[in-house]
């Protein structure tokens, strides 16, 4: 029972992290109609920046804040130098260009930080287990991730639904040309949205960093998960991304935790131990395939253009 609670929380935490990544992706996709494969690289850069700045400043909070700023800046520079010329181009062109960026970032990281992974050690106050319900302890750091991610999600909701910038973002998602025609500085808006997406990806990367090692290619696996999420949730829909991210995070975590035991009850030991890892890794993709076959535009399609 305790195990189930713990794994549910792990799933929630993973799902929220995925949401941070997917939110930026779906905003950029929904508003600029831009497929950004390099989003995973921004996630990786966030983690590397954090590992560096935390080591330099000797302060976890200060270091991560600096890393967040650095990723934001990197995103804005990237958009300004290269990516803004690709809006309105074919999706395939965008895939090719941002695939090139992945190659670039991976080798740039290898050149600067070397091929070995880095570790981002946690400060002592974040490593203590916290008793959440009597008898159930949960790592403080993972709780922090949940709290921070929920706060960011709430803030994102408020910004998008309650502010003028958010209004423009939503308007941009439903009709790009029209808000340009109404005299809104659409280029600035796009740069801003891209920077916001980059910062969110960086935040996801730096929060994940202490749990996993910081290494080259860490963004590639999770990028595909983020794409799965925005496709399940319906492209351009933040609400859809939120629901789908939690869904994917919890199903993925629970599948990995409990599927092997469940299979062992049905299949023979050897067959189960072969099938379980494959099935639990495939679960998410299977889910997406089923959803797309039944609902070809995702669960929560954004309003029609």
């Amino acid at each position, binding site marked *: 029972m305790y195990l189930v609670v713990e794994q549910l929380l792990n799933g929630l935490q993973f799902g929220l992290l995925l949401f941070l990544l997917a939110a930026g992706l779906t905003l950029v996709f929904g508003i600029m109609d831009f497929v950004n494969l390099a989003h995973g690289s921004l996630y990786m850069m966030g983690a590397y920046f954090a590992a560096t700045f935390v080591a330099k400043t000797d302060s976890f909070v200060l270091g991560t804040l600096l890393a967040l700023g650095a990723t934001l800046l990197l995103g804005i520079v990237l958009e300004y130098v290269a990516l803004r010329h690709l809006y309105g181009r074919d*999706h395939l062109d965008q895939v090719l260009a941002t695939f090139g960026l992945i190659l670039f970032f991976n080798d740039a990281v290898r050149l600067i930080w070397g091929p070995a992974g880095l570790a981002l050690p946690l400060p002592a106050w974040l490593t203590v287990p916290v008793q959440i319900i009597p008898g159930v302890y949960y790592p403080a750091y993972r709780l922090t991730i949940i709290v921070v991610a929920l706060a960011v999600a709430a803030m994102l909701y408020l910004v998008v639904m309650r502010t003028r910038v958010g209004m423009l973002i939503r308007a941009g998602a439903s009709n790009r040309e029209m808000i340009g025609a109404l005299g809104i500085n659409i280029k600035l808006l796009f740069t801003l949205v891209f920077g916001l997406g980059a910062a969110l990806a960086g935040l996801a990367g730096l929060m994940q960093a202490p749990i996993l090692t910081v290494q080259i290619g860490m963004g590639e696996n999770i990028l595909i998960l983020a794409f799965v999420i925005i496709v399940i949730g319906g492209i351009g829909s933040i609400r859809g991304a939120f629901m789908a991210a939690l869904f994917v995070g919890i199903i993925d975590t629970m599948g990995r935790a409990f599927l092997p035991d469940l299979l062992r009850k049905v299949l023979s030991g050897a067959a189960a131990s072969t099938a379980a890892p494959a099935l639990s890794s495939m679960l998410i993709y299977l889910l997406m395939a089923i959803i797309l076959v039944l609902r070809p535009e995702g669960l929560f399609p954004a309003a029609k253009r």
Partner: protein
Amino acid sequence: MKPKLNASNAVAALMCAALILLPVYSAATGNIFILTLFTRIVIFALAAASLNLIMGYGGMMSFGHAAYLGIGGYAVGILAAEGIGSGFIQWPVALVVSALFALLIGSLSLRTRGVYFIMITLAFAQMAYYVASALSRYGGDDGLTVYKRSDFAGLINLSDRTQFYYLCLGCLFGGLYLIWRIVNSRFGLVVQGVRSNEQRMQAIGFHANRYRLVCFVISGTICGLAGALLANNTDFVSPAVMYWTRSGDLMVMVILGGMGSLFGPVIGAIVYLLLEELLSQFTEFSGLILGPVLLLIVLFARGGIMGLLGRMSRG
């Protein structure tokens, strides 16, 4: 269709001649490395050409094409591991399994369009990747060594570098010929019509999705052949062949060379893999140059290399 003499056709003809004469050059100079490098390139050119059939002519952006490379490869590898070394069994099995996989994922994926199609094909390829990683009997994550290349009863010796190269080249030319015939047939015209305007084709009475599906299966089967060749070339097959970045590589080759032109993917494969090889000799950080080059090509050379040549010959 009479071929016209222009820059792109001239380049294609020169390229074919160079590919045919390459073993002669290799034997004359004793440069074995270039022959092994180009064997790999020719195999990937075949895979890229098969992707071009659905992407360039059919408008189906498959982001999971590397799955067939793996399926073709694993068909050869698994049969070899089970003691069935005959190519007359291995290769047909590779083709049939690839075709069946393409039929299965095609019939599900073709319900979606656009970006959703890109993502669902990707999802299926990732599933194939995880299945292969879990095949602990056949090496799992570490991959499977193919100790003996396919045996064609003395007809052709795959362990001989030159013979194997010509076999790969023969498969490439055969594949290109097949694609050329398909594209210019009634069937191919319908597929291209569906790419331009699906609703209109439906309205004149074509079952758009059936044509698409057949095209998708043919493409997957050709790529399965490339997979069988690849497993023989590297004497090894591993799940990494199916990872999504591999599918990305294939897409890059097609777009780089020129989507929807017969020889575009071949040129794309040659340029991409040569560039990767050359850069890796200068620096271990080849991506630092290759990445921005891709970006620049997208920004300034629309339609890939073939598109560039086409514009040149039109003046």
